């Protein structure tokens, strides 16, 4: 019996997942199909290293209910001690925490920092490739199977840097070898029906990149009611054409390998009033989409400790919508 199986058995969690005789910490063989819950530690960045440690966040993730399956995790590169070159001892501690708290590494949030040396002279293709591959190797070392590959942009519609196709193509065989999917994040104000998406899909089809290059869709693209903030009360319907409709997602689903479950407000009855989670999740279930929804909280009170309760409320909502209760 592995350490993980022992911990799960002693916690009383009896599931098909834990019953697998070949299960180990890196095996995803007996995974529950369909959309699953996860969390990005980005939600808690105001608290990390100030009011709590990284292990406290693992314990918090565990408390989002890991009885049915291990909760998915996204972290950003900065949580890795001595990034980009953590010690073997730290990497072992990382895997031990994942096992102890029933957390499954899903997505490594990283950047291709095109403005590394200059605001106006972006990194060349070779430099971009080297930065990208450095992070893919680390993602694999930490057990991640997706990388939120944030590309540098050149305009207000978040069009990526001109040479993105070149360095992504160079990295495809490396991503395959390391079992890590490269996923730029589709984030508001980008629309799902837009040239930015058309360009990504054209590249994905032409270069046959699936699954090693795809997209991560941020639920913020579906937000249709304004949120409170910057002195505004929020609650105003947004102008048609400034947000994406849930059904716009359907043709993209084959290329989406995980979602950022973005939210910025939760009511006390555990509902998200300005993003149509119910409609989007119904689409994911209907189309048999398989993967993780990684909570990303950006509410106003996150700088004053509000993220913990907000994420917990969102997970009550997600459990209801996913049929886990």
């Amino acid at each position, binding site marked *: 019996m592995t350490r993980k199986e022992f911990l799960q058995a002693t916690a009383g969690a009896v599931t098909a997942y834990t019953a697998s005789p070949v299960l180990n910490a890196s095996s995803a063989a007996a995974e529950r199909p369909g959309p699953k819950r996860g969390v990005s530690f980005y939600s808690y960045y105001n608290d990390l*290293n100030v009011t709590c440690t990284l292990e406290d966040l693992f314990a918090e993730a565990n408390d989002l209910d890991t009885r049915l399956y291990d909760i998915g995790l996204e972290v950003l590169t*900065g949580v890795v001690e001595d990034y980009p070159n953590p010690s073997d001892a730290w990497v072992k501690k990382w895997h031990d925490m994942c096992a102890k708290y029933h957390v499954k590494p899903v997505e490594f949030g990283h950047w291709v920092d095109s403005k590394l040396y200059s605001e106006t002279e972006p990194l060349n293709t070779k430099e971009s490739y080297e930065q990208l591959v450095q992070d893919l190797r680390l993602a694999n070392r930490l057990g991640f199977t997706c990388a939120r590959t944030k590309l540098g942009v050149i305009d207000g519609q978040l069009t990526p840097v001109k040479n993105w196709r070149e360095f992504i193509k160079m990295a495809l065989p490396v991503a395959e070898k390391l079992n890590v999917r490269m996923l730029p994040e589709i984030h508001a104000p980008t629309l799902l029906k837009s040239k930015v998406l058309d360009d990504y899909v054209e590249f994905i089809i032409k270069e046959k990149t699936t699954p090693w290059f795809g997209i991560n869709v941020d639920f913020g693209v579906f937000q249709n009611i304004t949120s409170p903030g910057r002195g505004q009360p929020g609650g105003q319907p947004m102008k048609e054409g400034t947000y994406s409709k849930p059904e716009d997602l359907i043709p993209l689903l084959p290329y989406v390998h995980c979602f950022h479950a973005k939210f910025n407000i939760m009511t006390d009855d555990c509902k998200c009033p300005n993003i149509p989670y119910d409609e989007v999740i119904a689409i994911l279930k209907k189309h048999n989409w398989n993967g993780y929804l990684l909570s990303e909280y950006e509410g106003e009170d996150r700088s004053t400790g509000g993220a913990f309760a907000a994420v917990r409320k969102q997970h009550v909502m997600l459990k209801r919508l996913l049929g886990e209760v």
Partner: protein
Amino acid sequence: MLEKEPVQQRGFHNVFQNGKPVGFQVRYRSTYYRGIWLSMSTGFEVTVDGEKFSGPQIRVTIGGKTYTQEEMKKIGNVQWPNYEAAILTVAKPGGLALGVHEVAVTWGHRTSYIPTNVGILGAPATSTRKLVLVY
């Protein structure tokens, strides 16, 4: 762990050479949500009781290594992590007087995924705090 305020109380003290104060140190943490490659820092300025220090007057210690601000511009493979406050060593012959000082630190950085024309994220921002110098 770190204090919530970017400018940290602990670590504010004079630095000495041959027993004589030649400057002071103050620790500062980044509240940006990710670590920053040293080359993406656009520079630190420190103001104490209205007296401003910048450029070569400030050296920056991160991960146990000390850099001039000019050196940092060329280092694209070392990160300043969120879990560590940078130690700013400021040259000031005679150092600072014991007691309370108003200390302001201004810092900014580049952001690759925000277009230049709306690049407000990372623009230099100033954090001010009253700190107490004991030695």
